[in-house]
């Protein structure tokens, strides 16, 4: 029989909740935006409804930067009974996810397929915002319950979004597969959480860490719990062998959502993975060493190496550009995991920087794919033939983005890979072979990425058609800006790398 809390206790709970609210303003703002968009959707009528909704979302999301920026001045720490944490690391990801959401909206506005496939845009934009909220909370969650809730919010929004083309069989199939696979992964992860709770009677990851350090644990249970949790995280980051959903979903989902999932959802997974492994898994001076006899490094190394090899090698065989980019995103998860393996300040900085560069180049590449498919109605490699002369800017821009994805200078992708590999090498000779695999698989990626420019510039179109396919002034401007940024940050990367270094502080502490 539970005892009812006394009046004083209730008062103190309320006051703690109240004090936490001040640190929760961006999330509250985004929630209001979410609801506002649904109401706007109901209130609006007419042909331009989808455009107005899109722009409203864009402006609304942009507004949240104001509230996020104010959080830099606030004291880092835990709120809401240790459920939620505010630190530079979380703020970094808040910027990241809001920007991702905005880019998804931009890509949606550019995508003509929405006009054809979707009668009413309805709650689409609201769901994009809901996903932003979920991801923001994932990056800031410091409690197992909070982690689960945030992940489910992201997943549920993503299921609906990926199936948004209801009449397109591939889209519906994607949504269904995503749902089934996601449900299994969430279930496995939840089981892992419950094992941890069973061992420590705590849900806060800091307290879990202390409890494990103080009282020890049964290694067998610990292995099982962590493996199961990895299944959940691995599904979010899309690393081998938890990646199986991603090619099907990426291919079937609307392209803006594919881009959104491949960048933002993956980044959210990494945000969680980094925080969880640093905090919840106790480690001493050198990471992993004091978890009794368990070789955690091997687990991550296997996932990383397998992702790099599998993603790059299978991508060679793809005939559909979206699917090709899906496999390449598995490979990129592998590269990012290399940064996690390093598990120190340089590694975290490298991961954050790589995420920024990946954000830029992957979104940009998908954006061009959207523009091209607007004109040609297709995403297969064969239909890219001869496009270089018809859409010269798009061709040039896509080539730059793909060069960046390969990791060649002078692009931002090169700096990203450079930072990851140099972080690995700074750890000593043991990690050289890992870096070597990374470089070799990058060489493989050169082959399949360059298939796209090859088709665009060097092969004749299957159906000769001389008219040029102008994607419109705004789109051209956007591509030019993204292209310049990709090269600009490849040359002047200091602001980004400084931002990444500054943001690698969790809980307001330097962890190392």
């Amino acid at each position, binding site marked *: 029989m539970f005892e009812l809390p006394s009046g004083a206790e209730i008062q103190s709970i309320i006051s703690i909740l109240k004090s936490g609210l001040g640190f929760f303003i961006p999330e509250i703002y985004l929630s209001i935006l979410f609801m506002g968009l649904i109401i706007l959707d109901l209130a609006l009528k007419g042909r331009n409804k989808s455009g107005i909704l899109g722009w409203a979302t864009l402006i609304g999301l942009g507004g949240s930067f104001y509230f996020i920026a104010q959080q830099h001045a606030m004291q880092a720490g835990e709120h809401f009974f240790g459920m939620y944490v505010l630190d530079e690391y979380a703020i970094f990801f808040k910027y990241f996810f809001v920007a991702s959401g905005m880019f998804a909206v931009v890509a949606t506005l550019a995508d003509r397929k929405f006009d054809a496939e979707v009668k009413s845009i309805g709650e689409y934009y609201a769901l994009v915002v809901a996903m932003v909220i979920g991801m923001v909370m994932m990056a800031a969650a410091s409690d197992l319950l909070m982690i689960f809730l945030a992940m489910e919010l992201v997943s549920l929004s993503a299921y609906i979004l990926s199936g948004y083309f209801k009449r397109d069989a591939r889209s519906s199939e994607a949504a269904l597969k995503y749902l089934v696979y996601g449900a299994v992964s969430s279930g496995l992860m939840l089981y892992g959480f419950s094992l941890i709770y069973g061992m420590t009677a705590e849900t806060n990851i800091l307290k879990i860490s202390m409890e494990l350090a103080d009282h020890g644990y049964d290694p*067998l249970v610990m292995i*099982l719990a962590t493996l*199961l949790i990895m299944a959940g995280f691995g599904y979010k980051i899309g690393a081998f062998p938890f990646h*199986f959903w991603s090619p099907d979903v990426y291919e079937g989902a609307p392209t803006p959502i594919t881009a959104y999932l491949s960048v933002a959802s993956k980044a959210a997974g990494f945000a969680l993975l980094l925080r969880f492994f640093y905090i919840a898994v106790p480690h001493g001076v050198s990471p992993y060493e004091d978890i009794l006899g*368990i070789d955690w490094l091997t*687990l991550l190394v296997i996932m990383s190496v397998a992702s790099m090899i599998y993603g790059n*090698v299978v991508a060679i065989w793809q005939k559909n550009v979206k699917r090709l980019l899906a496999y390449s995103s598995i490979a990129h998860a592998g590269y990012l995991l290399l940064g996690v393996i390093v598990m120190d300040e340089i590694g975290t900085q490298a991961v954050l920087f790589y995420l920024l560069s990946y954000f830029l180049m992957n979104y940009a590449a998908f954006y061009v794919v959207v523009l091209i498919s607007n004109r040609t109605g297709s995403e297969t490699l064969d239909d890219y033939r001869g496009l270089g002369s018809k859409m010269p800017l798009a061709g040039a821009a896509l080539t730059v983005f793909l060069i960046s994805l390969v990791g060649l200078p002078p692009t931002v992708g090169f700096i990203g890979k450079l930072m990851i590999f140099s972080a690995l090498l700074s750890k000593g000779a043991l990690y050289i072979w890992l870096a070597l695999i990374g470089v070799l698989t990058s060489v493989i990626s050169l082959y399949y990425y360059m298939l796209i420019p090859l088709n665009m510039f060097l092969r004749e179109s299957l159906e000769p058609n001389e008219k040029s396919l102008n994607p419109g002034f705004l789109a051209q401007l956007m591509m030019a800006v993204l292209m310049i940024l990709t090269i600009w940050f490849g040359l002047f990367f200091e602001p980004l790398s400084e931002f990444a270094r500054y943001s690698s502080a969790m809980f307001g502490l330097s962890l190392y």
Partner: protein
Amino acid sequence: MHSLIQLSIAVLLLPLLSFVILIFFNRRLPRRGDFIGVGILGATFGLSAYIFWTVIVQHYDPAFRVAWDFTWIDFGNVPGVGPLVIKMGIVIDNLTAIMLAMVTLISFLVHLYSTGYMKGDKHYGRFFAYLGIFTFSMLGIVLADNLFAIYIFWELVGLSSYLLIGFFFEKESAADAQKKAFLANRVGDIGMWLGILILYSQFHTFSYHEIFGHLAAGEFGMSHAWLTAAGILLFMGCVGKSAQFPLHVWLPDAMEGPTPVSALIHAATMVAAGVYFVARIFVLLTPEALYVISFVGAFTAFMAATIAITQHDIKRVLAYSTVSQLGYMVLGLGVGAYSAAIFHLVTHAFFKACLFLGSGAIIHAMHHEQDMRWMGGLRKNMPWTFVTFSVATLALAGLPLSSGFMSKDAILAGAIGFAQAEGGGIYYLVPFLGFISALMTAFYMGRQIWLVFFGESRTHLKPAAPDDHHAAHAHDDGHEGEHHAVHEVAWNMRLPLVILAALSIFVVYSPDPLDGGKGWFMHMIQTPATVVGETVHAEPALHMEAGESLAAGEGHEVVPGHGAAQMHAETHTEGHTFADPRQAEIGHLSHAAHNQAIMISSIMVALGIVLALVFYVFRLIDPDKTAKAIRPLYLLSFNKWYWDEIYNATVIKGSLGIARLLSWFDANIVDGVVNGVATLTRKFAFANGSFDRYAVDGMVNFTAFFVNTSGAFMKKLQTGKVQTYVVMVILALFGYFVYYFTQLVY
């Protein structure tokens, strides 16, 4: 940031803007966008003139200096090297301000001139774009505050020069000249880069200012010989770019480029960049390096002058004269007459640009006739060109009242002082060659003026040889047998000539036509104290020259062994001395030699002019007969001392020989080995069945095949059935678990 720095950044970037606009959009713009090039350069010149005004007129301080830099790349702490930071920055001092104004003015005038000269060319717009990128690169050299940046811009001017020499790339001779220029420069640039690396290896910085500071503090860790080597290697960059012996061969051939380019790049600015660079690093040159520099300069001045005497092509005469004058500047730096050398750089830039643009006007008016033998009598038809060309010729020959007179005399006085300070003997060769070259300069310029402007037109004397390029050109244009009247050129080509001629008159630089040292120029540019001389503790006034000429007596005090010596050295006070005794002595003696130099050089110039009159005006001696009488010498000069042939026989034949040897090695030994292996492998494969095929195809194919097949295999995992996916995950988890479990158990 200082407002001057902000202005200078604008000055630097504006020509680049012109390049970007013109290279991409010239076909879409009216008049191919030439007004954009001219307009932007006009604005650039306006800003530079403002900088010049602020620095030179308002501050009027020999020690004026504004610097700004930023960290360009920070590699952090590189293992085995230490902190590796590359900075970029701008420094503005009097030298920079003067160079900025000079470069942008000449560039602007050449842009303006080209609107007339290049009119109707197929690649008219592209020409202006190239001029823009050249100007940008040249300004970069002028503004840079470190060796790394200067090297980058150094290569960029090399590139623009390459593009512009080969502007008429359909002509084979232009394409060859362009390659020759690029390769010859490359030789010099490699030396320069090695020199930069020697200094970098010691001080871990590229900044001049910091390097000088370290050197003054005696922190150079290697032997003195290395420092000399660094100086000479850096000087090699100048040898290439400023066409000094032995890399001078490219510059005369570079005249294949359009004439405005010859004026801007191959006379006034880029070739002077070498001299500018040596002036920038002047303080770190050891006396030994300076000897090398002075002899190279003297020899170049002399050799080029001898060649110029016998050339027929109007532009080639001017080209060799440029080489000769650059030799003077290098000589001036070598003997320590720093300010005189820079003075000559600037005066030469104006009068030589004027001469080239004048020759361009003549060529333009003569329908691409360049051979002086078929000119003559142009005085009447082209009065403007005649007058301006003559003024510039007087300056080049070094007649009193001209700018060239003052600057050349200052150099020669420095050379005499140098020879005296070094104790005579072989060192007198330097002033001797200088004076002989002055004589020859007067002679060949007299010859040129006479052949081109006086007498009667000799156009009709030209033999119409079928292989003659120009004749063929005339035939193409349908001018066969008729001679067009020669007209004065239009205003847009005349105006630059007038401005440049006006800048070749003494009053611009000094109120006293006989002594440049009394003018503002020599006051603003003063010889900096060396940072590598003998360290003598500063004694009061070794050679007090209070109130005397600024050219000689003035210097800077260096406190040896002091970290900030260089900075200290730049605080100028009236009438103090060099701490380095050698520098002080040269300064003293060259001041004393001033009147002597004026005397001798005036006599030499007079002699040269008299000779020219005797040969070409009064025809007392027939030049052709003289040539026959001294045929070996004539041929030596006419064939440019056979340098091209010598290089052909040694360097080119040598490299081709090595190439042939390597090719033979490749064809016979390497291929033999490969073929042998292939044969063996084929037999082996034949014997062993088909699976060996991949080994023969080589690693690359095999890897590709392997990757491909493994991809094909692995993609089968993606069945498209979500049940399989879930099973895979469970299997993977189970696999991991078994792995850890076994680890735990054992």
